[in-house]
C-alpha cells in the first residue's frame, strides 16, 4: 500500500498529486517532464516537499504537517535512478554490494548477478561500462540493498529485449517472493501491461484519470 499526497514547486514547475495504490507493482506513466522523477525523489527523501504526506505499507516516511521526515538513509528504498549514478571509484562488485553492506543484509549476490548477466563485469569500473551494462548494475545495486520499496525510473530503457524478457518476470515475482512493492516509471505500454497492477498517469504535475 502506497499513499502519496504531495505539493512541490521547482521554479515554474508545480507538482500537485494525490494517489494511493494497493497493487504490488504500480506504474507511473506520463509524458516527459510530467513530474514522475520528482515524485520518486520525494518518496526517496531526496527532496522535501512543500506540503504533503507519504506512507508506504503503513509506515509514514514524510508528513510535513506533523514535521515527521524520515532521513533518506533510514527509508529502506531501493532507487534505480534514471541516470545510473554508479560510484565511479568502486568496482562493479563494490557498487552492487554497497547498500547490502549498509543494511547488513544477507541477500545472496549470486542470483542477482546471474539474472542481470553481470558475471564478467564484477571487477570492472563503471566508467567504461556500456549503457545497458551500467543500467543493469544499478538495478542489481538497488535489489541487493534489501529494500522495503523499489523505485524504478525507466530501468530497462537501454536493455535489449532478450534480457528484458528475463528481468520483467523476476520483477513481477518480487513483491510476492520478497514482499517488496514496486513503483515503476516507464514509457512502454507493453512493459506496463505485463507488469503493473495499477497505472497512475501524470501530466504536467497532476494525476490524470484516463
Amino acid at each position, binding site marked *: 500500500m502506497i499513499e502519496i499526497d504531495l505539493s512541490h514547486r521547482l521554479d515554474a514547475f508545480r507538482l500537485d498529486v494525490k494517489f494511493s495504490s494497493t497493487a504490488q507493482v504500480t506504474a507511473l506513466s506520463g509524458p516527459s517532464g510530467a513530474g514522475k522523477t520528482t515524485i520518486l525523489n520525494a518518496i526517496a*527523501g531526496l527532496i522535501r516537499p512543500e506540503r504533503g504526506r507519504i506512507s508506504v505499507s503503513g509506515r509514514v516516511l514524510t508528513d510535513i504537517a506533523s514535521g515527521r521526515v524520515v532521513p533518506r538513509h533510514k527509508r529502506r528504498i531501493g*532507487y534505480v535512478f534514471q541516470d545510473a*549514478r554508479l560510484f565511479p571509484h568502486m568496482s562493479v562488485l563494490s557498487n552492487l554490494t*554497497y*547498500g547490502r553492506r549498509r543494511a547488513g543484509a544477507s541477500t545472496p549476490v549470486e542470483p542477482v548477478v546471474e539474472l542481470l548477466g553481470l558475471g564478467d563485469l564484477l571487477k570492472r569500473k563503471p566508467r567504461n561500462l556500456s549503457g545497458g551494462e551500467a543500467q543493469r548494475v544499478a538495478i542489481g545495486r538497488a535489489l541487493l540493498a534489501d529494500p522495503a520499496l523499489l523505485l524504478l525510473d525507466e530501468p530497462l530503457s537501454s536493455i535489449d529485449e532478450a534480457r528484458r524478457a528475463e528481468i520483467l518476470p523476476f520483477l513481477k515475482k518480487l513483491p510476492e517472493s520478497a514482499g517488496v512493492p514496486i513503483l515503476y516509471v516507464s514509457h512502454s505500454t507493453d512493459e506496463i501491461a505485463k507488469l503493473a497492477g495499477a497505472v497512475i498517469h501524470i501530466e504536467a504535475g497532476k494525476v490524470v484519470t484516463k
Partner: protein
Amino acid sequence: MFDWFRLEPAEVAALQLSLKVAATATLFSLPLGIAVAYLLARGRFWGRSLLNALVHLPLVLPPVVTGYLLLLSFGKRGPVGAFLYDWFGFSFSFRWTGAALAAGVMAFPLMVRAIRLSIEAVDRRLEDAAGTLGANPLVVFFTVTLPLSVPGILAGSVLAFAKAIGEFGATITFVSNIPGETQTLPSAIYTFTQVPGGDAGALRLVLIAIAVSVVALLVSEYFARKVDRRLDLQ
C-alpha cells in the same frame, strides 16, 4: 667535483630535520584541513566567511608576523602554550615540533583550497544515491565524498609539503635557528645568504632542496596517476 656535494654533518641534520618537519606538518594538518575544507565547501553557517579569512591569513601576512603571532600564542607565556605546558607538559618552544607547527600553519591555506576545490566538484547526485542505499551522512562522507576528493587531497598535500620544506620566516621567528633541533634547510640557506661570499654554500643547499622537492613531486605524481586510474577519471 663530487666533493662539492658532500654534505657536512650539520647540513645532513638540516636536511633530515626539514623532511621530518615537512612530513609532520603535512600529516597532522591533513585531518583538520579536510574538515575545514568540507565546512567551507558545504557548510552554510554564520561565520563561514570569517573562517575562510582566518584560513587565508598566513598567506596574506608576512611570515615574520605569523611567526610572531605564533610566539605570542604558543610560546611559553602565550595562552595556548602555557595551557599545553601546564596540562600536558608539552611545549613547542625551541623544539622541532614548533617548526612543524609553523610550517603547518603557513601551508594550511594551500592545503585547504585544493581539498575544498575537489569536494566542491563531487557530484552530489552520487551522495544522494549513497543515502538511498542506507548510508548515513558520515558514511556517505567517508565512502563517497572523501574518496572522490582524493585528487584534491593529494594536490593539497603536495603543496603543503613543498611549502613546509621552503618555510622559513615564520619558523625562525617562532622557534629560532638551533642546529639539530630547529635549523631546517631554508634556515641554513638563509644564514649562508647573509654572509658575504656565502653564495656557494647557499647554492649547494638550494640544489639539495630542489632535489628533495623534485623527488617528492615525482612520488606524488606517481600516486596521483595511480589514483586517477583507480578512480578511472581518465
